[in-house]
């Protein structure tokens, strides 16, 4: 009766697999999770992720073997509702939040997730970045309205954590197709320079150095400084910068950089950080596209889950994560995207090659939502 499951090796792209499995209802088995390493099996943060998934679903079956090297996941129905989760500080909240962004709109009841842990670190997209890029992207797919927001209540830097984020997402029955083929020109750059448990001056130093680079292109730059104090500043000191470039057509490109966590590696000067982050943003602009590199997979997922209509999106070069995501989409939904490379014209100065992805939605409709 039940559909045949899929089987994968290794813990990479762990979230993708579980998320797609949940959405498609296909069982998944992941084998050889760090089986050859000294410390085999699932890590704490992955276990925490599974726990979060268990919280938002109803009736999922998760089986993990003794050593934690094999995971079997049979998805239940997405339930949503009010969820509180203590995210493991090995990874930042972005790690967990990315999955919730993908699942949020397909729940039975609107999701209100309170996630606690590290809000900003170097490995994952920070909550500030997701707030300023992923949310506007999802709005283009028709996921918006009153209860759609991401609020950073407390900031917590790696490694201690102690931050808190509230993500609320309304429920949708169907997703709109999109045609994002023209990003338009960048009209303004905004950003947040945050600092916690360090001198508030740090943020200002970051802003100055970042502006120094970006002002060559655009005068409309405003970088907010966000200095959290007291209980809202988490457990560890740190600072960082998130930059977002907004185009005329409402596309957002972003870059970010965070200081190295306390006691891990060389400390970073705020000036360097600001400069490097600005350069990262330029790099992102060079890559271009309508969706920035972090959210490519989110955009592709929502295109896949749309009605049976053609969606188009122009992306920068595909990141390895996205490439794997495309493969996974094919595995779970039997959908392939038409991939066309758009070369820049001779006299055009708009960065590198772009990729135009065209796909047809699978006609997914939210089967969790209650009919009244």
């Amino acid at each position, binding site marked *: *009766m039940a*559909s045949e499951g899929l089987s994968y090796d*290794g813990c*990479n*792209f*762990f979230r993708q697999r579980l998320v797609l499995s949940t959405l*498609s*209802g296909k069982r998944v088995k992941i084998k*050889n999770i760090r089986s*050859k390493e000294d410390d085999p099996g699932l890590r704490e943060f992955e276990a925490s992720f599974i726990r979060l998934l268990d919280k938002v679903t*109803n*009736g999922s079956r998760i089986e993990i073997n003794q050593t934690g090297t094999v995971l079997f996941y049979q998805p239940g*129905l997405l339930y949503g509702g009010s969820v509180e989760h203590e995210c493991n500080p090995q990874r930042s909240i972005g*790690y967990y939040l*990315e999955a919730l962004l993908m699942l949020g709109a397909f729940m*039975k009841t609107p999701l209100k997730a309170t996630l606690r842990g590290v809000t900003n670190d170097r*490995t*994952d997209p920070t909550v500030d970045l997701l707030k300023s890029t992923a949310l506007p992207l999802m709005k283009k797919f028709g996921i918006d309205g009153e209860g759609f927001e991401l609020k950073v209540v407390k900031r917590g830097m790696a490694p201690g954590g102690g931050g808190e984020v509230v993500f609320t997402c309304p429920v949708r029955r169907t997703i709109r197709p999109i045609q994002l083929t023209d990003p338009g*020109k960048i*009209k303004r750059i905004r950003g947040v320079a945050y600092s916690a448990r360090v001198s508030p001056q740090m943020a200002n130093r970051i802003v100055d150095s970042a502006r120094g*680079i970006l002002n060559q*292109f655009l005068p409309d730059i405003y970088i907010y400084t966000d200095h959290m104090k007291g209980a809202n500043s988490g457990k560890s000191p740190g600072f960082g910068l998130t930059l977002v470039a907004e185009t*005329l057509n409402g596309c957002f490109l972003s870059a970010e950089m965070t200081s190295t966590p306390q006691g891990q590696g060389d400390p970073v000067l705020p000036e360097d950080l600001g400069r490097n982050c600005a*350069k*990262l943003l330029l*790099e992102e*602009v*060079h890559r*271009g596209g309508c969706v920035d*590199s*972090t959210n490519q*997979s989110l955009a592709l997922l929502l295109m896949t889950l749309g009605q*049976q*209509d*053609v969606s188009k999106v122009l992306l920068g070069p*595909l*990141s*390895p*994560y996205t490439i794997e995501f*495309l*493969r996974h989409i*094919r595995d*779970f*939904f039997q*959908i*392939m*995207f*038409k*991939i066309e490379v758009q*070369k820049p014209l001779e006299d055009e*100065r*708009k*960065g590198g090659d772009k990729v135009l992805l*065209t796909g*047809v939605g699978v*006609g*997914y409709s939210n*089967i969790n939502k*209650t*009919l009244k």
Partner: protein
Amino acid sequence: MDGKVRKPKQHQQKHSGPQAEKKKLKKHGASTETDERKRNPKAFAVQSAVRMAKTFHRAQDIKAKKHHIPLVDRTPLEPPPIVVVVVGPPKVGKSTLVRCLIKNFTRQKLGEISGPVTIVSGKKRRLTFMECNNDINTMIDLAKVADLVLMLIDASFGFEMETFEFLNICQVHGFPRIMGVLTHLDSFKNNKTLRKTKKNLKHRFWTEVYQGAKLFYLSGMVYGEYQTQEVKNLGRFISVMKFRPLVWQTSHPYVLVDRMEDLTDPEKVRIDPKCDRTASLYGYLRGTHLKNKGQIHIPGVGDFQVKDVNFLPDPCPLPDAQKKRALNEKEHAVYIDLPASHVNQLQAEMQPTTELVQSLIDTHATLDAKMAASKVSLFSGSATLDPTDIKQALWDPKTQRERRKVLFAEEMKDDDEEDDEDEEEESEGGDEGESSGEDDLSEEEDNEEDCLSAFLKKSRGDSVKASGPPVKKSKVEAESERPVFADSEDELEMSEHESEGKDQPLGAGDSGHCSEDESDEESEDESEEGCLMSNTVTKQKEEEEDEDEEGRTPCFILFVSTGALKWKENLQLKASQAFLRQQESAPNLRKLVYGSVVEVEDDEDEEELGGLFRVSRPQNNKRFQANDLDSSHFHPDTTHNWDLEEMLNSIRDCFVTGKWEEGQDAATLLKEDEELYGDFEDLETGEVQKGQAIDDDGDNEVEQSEVKMDEEESRKNKRLEKKRRLKERFNAEYDDGDATYFDDLKEELQKQAELNRAEFEDVDDETRVQYEGFRPGMYVRLEISSLPCEFVTSFDPHYPIILGGLGSSEGNVGYLQMRLKKHRWHDRILKTRDPLILSLGWRRFQTIPLYHIEDHNGRHRLLKYTPLHMHCGASIWGPITPQGTGFLALQSLTGIKPNFRIAATGVVLDLDKSVTVVKKLKLIGYPYKIFKNTSFIKGMFNTVLEVAKFEGASVRTVSGIRGQIKKALSTPPGAYRATFEDRLLMSDIVFLRSWFPVAVPQLYNPVTSLLLPIGQKDSWSGMRTLGQLKHDLGIRYKPNSDSLYKPITRAPRRFNKLHIPKELQKALPFKNKPKQQQPKGKTSRDLQRPSVIREPHERKVAALLQALSTVHNYNRKKTHMVQHSKHKEFLKEKGKQEDAKLKRQKEARKKLYRVMGQMDQKKQRSSLKGAPQDD
């Protein structure tokens, strides 16, 4: 009035006066106003604001009511044939009608038809006819796929249950178009009864379907067929009918199978006749896009994973879009196929069709690269066919292909001709299988040529059927012993299973490989040099089996790590190859993403330690490290150096400060505006305001004077032109002011529909299928493995096989909550936990529902039975189906019962993995010690722990005293202290009302009616209901004697004597004082009367007196009776007289009154007239 006829008075036209003026004005067209509003503005003026508002409101309401939610039009350009299902009770003329319709469209007579028949009915329409037998399974299945239902009704009998059952099934599963057809009308002798019956039936039909639904009359039979003209009319109706999309059908792909082939290895079947079968099923894809390797449900069989899907050339194509007004009647192609579906007389005729399709399959399957060519040749071949030929040729194009003959014993009874073909084809197959590698191409080409030649030959008009297949001239090698279908099919599969990485050529569609090898090579080289799309560090090796004949396997690197400034070094190189790259990168990227991922064999890097343990080392050479960090961040390792000016310049145009495109540049836009708005003439003053651009002519004043006139002219023209443009723009902006949200939405969806159509239009089907799935209208072949053997062995073409595609997660099972209502015509209510057969989505299954109803506080309370005429909730364990899907329920599928079989209908409301149905549980306890308001209660719980769980719960006594559980007592176990709002009595019983969650039994039992032996397919029986079980086993219910109803016997009530205290008695007034009612004492002896004892004489006298008085009494009674009757008669007579008298009097009075009235009138009249003249 004399004899002459009086002429009517002629109209006198007025020649003067206001009327004449008006008329004159009208005639001469002075007021050309045709608009009533303008001609008579007063009539249209606002009389009342409220009324105006009301009318406006109403008009808007009516307008809004017309709107439907607009949907994206997703109908394919070449739609699949329309499924026409012919339904009706037995012996009503279904088969005859199908035969007649086919004959009407194709001028061909078919014998007995036992499967779907597809015909071309017009230039843009094909029809698939399917007859529906009276098995309720078939009725349910066909109602789900039908586009049009021809509902046959025996007029001489009237409606039968089957008709209504089918209508109800349709209502539940989306209402297809239904057309009623009345037959057996010739059995009416009387014309009047005929008319009356027609009318009655029509109106009853209308109430079921909709008012004004079409009902057709087939009057009588001529030589066992319906009258040609009537059938023709019916056919015309069918071929112009419009259909509306049904929700379930448009959201799910489905195939009504018209052909089945068993692909199981015959050897395997021989060894184990009960082994699971692999079969390929063919049919037109309908509904929506079908994804490869998706999940499907075959109603009556079960759920299966599709092993493979291919599309095939259409066996019954629409006639080409030639400029013809009507179809040549011979162009109405017919496609029938279900093996063993035709009786002998037709077998010879039908069989070759199979081969046509078969041949197409094979050409398609053998080599993808040759697909295009093969298609062309085939199509051209079929196109060249003479219309006169098609009739025969369609039945019999013998191509030289091997056939995958089904070799199970039942169907071995093929006739000789077929065997011959088989042999030939087998030999073909053999040599195809042999020829591999380099021979393949040429071989194929040869085949193509032969195909073509064969077709051409046929088109020359020889009767091909009789002649053998053309002799094959190409290298026919020795016959091989390989299994018949081992060759082409396998390759096909390989091309699909791309990740296998065997020595098989990759399919063109899979990886974006072009068929040319050279270009491939180049592209690979390219990708080695420049980091193609992303500058990733990860060194990814991708091993690919090349398409080369030699089968060499070059490794190439797709992602190359480049040094920090490497991009600078090969800048020039890159630039020079930019063009080349442009050509190659697209397929390369596609290959990169979707290409085969060859799993590198685990390098044997495990060394043994002491022969017992193995040292395992983390691998780091695998492509996309399987255990790498899982992060969506795209950290480019080799960032560009953003300190360089040229790098900065390369992205300058991405900002608003950069250079703009021609169309959007601010400068050009401004200029345009200038031109548009630049100069204008102030119409009031006649002054011309001049724009700068044109006005800039200071220095050539001299010439200006000369050409002033010309310039004036041209300027005027220009101005006019500009004005016109301005006006246009204004109109465009403001004219569609009433464009509402609805219109916008509609337009948007229209745009989306166009995009959907246009996007993949020019992509070849092979690739297109991968992007959007197989689109409806394609003729597809689905291969399904692990089918139960009964599916093949007890295959009956009369029963439809439907492949219903399932959406994501529709293949799972879970709890469903539904709204259910017992059908009004079902004669008994349904019991909770009695198994029920549901038809939901594609499926038919048996499950155990729990009925419940929602209380006002949202609690789902379990019901023992469904309400009689009300909706209730039902929770089942069953397949996940989207909300809003309708279902129907049956109690059994077997046997023919006279009553209505559909037990209930409803809709899915909610899906959940847990249920929240509760049932009321009353815990009972008894007080054993009562204080004032506190009581000790025992008998409700057994342990202290149980009590602890219910601390604070509210309890109640039967008499309605409310209370609360306070605390457990140590002894006796389970006793507790409770407080009440009043003192209890020892006789009180204490209740605790609680709700106990009920588990839904997890029974999901798909109805496997198609697997039953032929002839018994309607005898599926699953779990029996409780009532059935009891009936079958002869168990009688033994009721609890306490529960039985008994006549109520009440003991007579006894009251104590009223006792009034002495004090009170004294105070009472005498009236109310209790009287001293002493019992009377004994009567004294002297007061008692002695009894009289008569003497014998006295006794005689008394007896005589007694007798005499009796006689006297009798006589008196008799006389009285006579008297009485006499009196009665007298009264009657008197009454009569009285009546007559009254009548007389009445008449007299009437007369009198009349006279008086007349006099009155006269008097009045005279008084009105004034002075009396006559008087």
